[in-house]
C-alpha cells in the first residue's frame, strides 16, 4: 500500500514543483507551490510524522505561501511587464547541472544503508514535543529569537518611512 501512495504523492509533488518553476505568472507558481506543499505533507503522514505534517500545512501552506500571495498582490506587475524568460546559455547549463545533481543524489541514495531503528511512532506529537522541550530546548528558544528578529527586520525593511 505504502509504495503506491508514495508514488502517487511523489508524482504530485514533483509535478507541482516543475509547474512552480516553469510558470510565467508568479500567481500560478504560488498556487502550484501550495499543491506541492500539500503533497509533501501527505508524504510526511505516510512516514508517520503527523506533527510535522500538520506544521507543514499550517505554517508553510497556510502562512508562507499566503505571504507570497500578498506580496504578489502588492507588487502587482501587469501581465505584459513580467520579465521575459528565455532559457538560453547559462540558464540551460544551470538546468543541466541541476540534473547532474539529481543524478548524483540518486547514486548516493542507492548507497544508503542504515539499519532500521525501533518503529515507535517517533514522529508523533508526543515524541516530538518531548524531544523539543527537553533535548532541544535551547534550539527552540533560539528559534523564537530568530523569529523575533525576522519580524523586526521585515517590518523595518518594508516600511515606507522610518
Amino acid at each position, binding site marked *: 500500500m505504502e509504495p503506491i501512495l508514495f508514488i502517487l504523492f511523489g508524482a504530485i509533488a514533483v509535478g507541482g514543483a516543475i509547474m512552480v518553476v516553469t510558470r510565467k505568472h508568479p500567481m500560478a507558481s504560488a498556487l502550484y507551490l501550495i499543491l506541492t506543499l500539500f503533497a509533501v505533507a501527505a508524504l510526511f503522514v505516510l512516514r508517520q510524522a503527523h506533527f510535522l505534517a500538520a506544521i507543514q500545512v499550517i505554517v508553510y501552506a497556510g502562512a508562507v505561501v499566503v505571504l507570497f500571495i500578498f506580496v504578489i498582490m502588492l507588487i502587482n506587475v501587469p501581465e505584459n511587464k513580467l520579465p521575459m524568460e528565455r532559457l538560453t546559455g*547559462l540558464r540551460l*547549463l*544551470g538546468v543541466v*547541472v541541476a540534473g547532474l*545533481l539529481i543524478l*548524483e543524489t540518486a*547514486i548516493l541514495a542507492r548507497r544508503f544503508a542504515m539499519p532500521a531503528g525501533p518503529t515507535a511512532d517517533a514522529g508523533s506529537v508526543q515524541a516530538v514535543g518531548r524531544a523539543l522541550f527537553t533535548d532541544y530546548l535551547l534550539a527552540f528558544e533560539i528559534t523564537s529569537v530568530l523569529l523575533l528578529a525576522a519580524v523586526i527586520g521585515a517590518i523595518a525593511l518594508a516600511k515606507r518611512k522610518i
Partner: protein
Amino acid sequence: MVTGILDYIWLVPALPLLGVLLNGAIALFCERPLLLAEAAHGDGGHGHGDAHTVDKAHGTHSLGPSSLGTSAPVGEGHGASPAPYRKLVAFIGPAVVGAAFVVSVLAVLALAARPAHDRFFVQVLFPWIQAGGFSAPAALQLDPLSSVMILVVTGVGFLIHVYSAGYMSHEKAFARYFVYLNLFTFAMLTLVLGSNYLVMFVGWEGVGLCSYLLIGYWYEKKSASDAGKKAFIVNRIGDFGFMLGVFLIFWTFGTVNYTEVFAKVPFLSSSGVLTTEIATAITLLLFIGAIGKSAQIPLYVWLPDAMEGPTPVSALIHAATMVTAGVYMVARSNALFLLSPVSMGVVATVGAATAIFSATIGITQNDIKRVLAYSTVSQLGYMFLACGVGAFTAGIFHLMTHAFFKALLFLGSGSVIHALSGEQDMRKMGSLKKHLPITFTTMFIATLAIAGIPGLSGFFSKDEILWKAFSSEHGHIALWAVAALAAGITAFYMFRLVFLTFFGESRMEPEVEKHVHESPYSMTVPLMLLAVLSVVGGWIGIPEVLKGHNYFEEWLAPVFSHGAAGAHGAAHHPVALELGLMAGSVAVALCGIGLAYYLYRVRTNKPKEIAEAVPGLYDVVLNKYYVDEIYDFLFVRRIVNGSIVLWQAFDVAFIDGIVNGIASAVRGAGEGVRRLQTGVVGNYAFSLLLGAVLLVGYILTR
C-alpha cells in the same frame, strides 16, 4: 719605538683613504650643491648667449685659450670667489699623502734597521677569505721591494698632490678631483703592499677604476669620457688574463699568498707538479695583465688617449705609478718567471719591441703630452726588457728613476700649458726659455736624465738595463741593439720637444703670448724637488765598474735572490766590455741629441722638407701607424655590432618580452576573470551549484 712603527704600516694605505672620506664628504655636501645651483643659474641666466661662456659655466675644459681662467675670467662663478671648502680640500688632499709618506719613511727605516735576511714584515688586518683549505687574509707585506714602491708612490704622489692644488685651483669640481686622486693613492698602495695576489688584485682593479674616473674628469667633453672608457676597457682585457693567471696559481699551489707560493716553488718544480708548461702558462697570463696595465704592445692604445685627463693625473698615474704596477707584479713574481725561459723571452721581446715602436711614433707627434705619453710607453718597455732578461733589480731601478724624471716632465709640461692658457701644440710654442726659467731648467734636467747623460739618474738605470740585456744569460745581442737604438731615438725626440718648446723664435698666438707667466710656487717647488731627485736618484745604484757600490741591488737582493743569474752574467764578462758598451750608449744618445739640434735649431726647415719628401711614411707614423683604426675595424666594430644584436634579440625581445609578457598575461587574465562578476544572482547561484556538484562528484568517485 723604531720597530714599533712597523705595526702602523696599515696607516700608509689608510691615510689616503681617510682623505677620500673627508674630501668626499666635502665634495658631496659643499661642492655638489654649489655646482648644481650654478648649473641651474647658468642655464637660466645666460640663455643662448655666448657659447663660450656657457661652456665655462658648465665647467667644460676646452683646449682653447683662457679655459683655465688664468686670464680675465669671462664666465661667472668660475673660481672668481673661492669657497672656503677649497682651502680645506687643498690641505687635506696632499696632507694625507704627506703623512703616509712620513709613515713610509719611518717604516722603511725600521725595516732597514733589521739584518738583511730578516727584512720582512707581514701585518694581517683581518681574515677576509677563509674557505676550506684556502685562506687569503687581508694582509700587508713590507719587504725591500714593496718599501721601494711605497716610497715612490707616496713621495712622488705627495709632490703631485701639492702641484695639483695649484694647477687645479680654478676648477669647479675641485673636491671631486682630490677625492679621486686620494682614492687612487689608496688603491695603488693596496696594490704594492698586499701580501697576496688577491689583495694586489683589489688594488689593481682600484687603480683601473680611478684611472677611468680621472681621465674622464672633464666628462662633459666627449673625447675625455671616451678616453676614460677606452682606458678601462683595454685594461679589462689585461685584467682577464691576470685573473686567469691567479686562478692557475691557486690551482697549482693551493694558495695565493706570496710567501707560501714562492716557498713552494723549489719543492713543486722538483716534484714535477710545477712543470715548465704550467709555469709558462701562469706567467704568460700574468704578463697579459701587465700588458694591459702597463701599456705594452698590443694593449698600449689607451695611454696616449689618457692624456685627455688633467696633466697632474698624467704625471701620477700614467708615468709614475699605475703603469708601473705591471712591472711591480712581474718583479714580485720573479720566482715564477725564472722557471720559464719562454715567458722571459716573451717579456723581453715585447718590452724591447714596445720600446722602439712607440719611440718611433714619438718623433712625429705635435702635442707635447702625446710625446711624453709615447715616451712613457717606450720607457715601460725598457722596464719589461730588464725583467725579461732577469735583471729585475734594474727594472725596478728604472721604475724609480723614471718616476722622478717622467713626473717632472709631465708636471713641467703642465706648467707650460698653464702658462700658455691651455695651448698644447708644440708648433705654437717657442722661446719660452726666457718666460719660464724655472720650468725650463727643471725640464731640461729631466730631459738630460731620460736621454741617459752620465751622472744623472736615468743614465745609471738605463745603462744597467742595456748591459744586462747584452750580458745576462737570458739576454741577447739583438735585444741590446734594439734597446740602444731606441735610446738614441728617445734622446732625439726628447730634445726635439725641448728645442721646439723653449728655444727659437716665438710661434705663440699673440693673445696667448700676452698672458705668459711663470707658475706659482705650489707648482714650481715640486718641479725643483723632482729635478733634484732626477739628478741624485741614481746615485744609490752606481755599478761596480764605475767604482761605486750598488746599494740598490743590495737592498733588493732578498727579494730577487733567484735573479742572481743576472749577477752571474756580469762575472763572466770583462770590465772593458761593460765600459765600452756604456760609452757606446752615451755616444748613441749624443748622436740623437746632435740630430735634434741640427734639425730644430740649425736647419729648422729640414723637418718639413723631410716630411714632404716621404709623405706616405710621415702620415703613417704621425697617425700612430693607424693601430687604433685597425683595432676599431678588427675588434671594436664587431663587438659593438654583436652587442647590438644581443641587445635587440635577447635583452629587448626576450627578456623584456618575458617581463612585459607576464604583465600582459596577468592583465589579460584579469580582464577575463572580471567578467564572472555579472551582478546577477542567478549566475552566482549557478556557480554555487556547479561547485557543489563537482564536490559531491569527487566524493562519490573517490
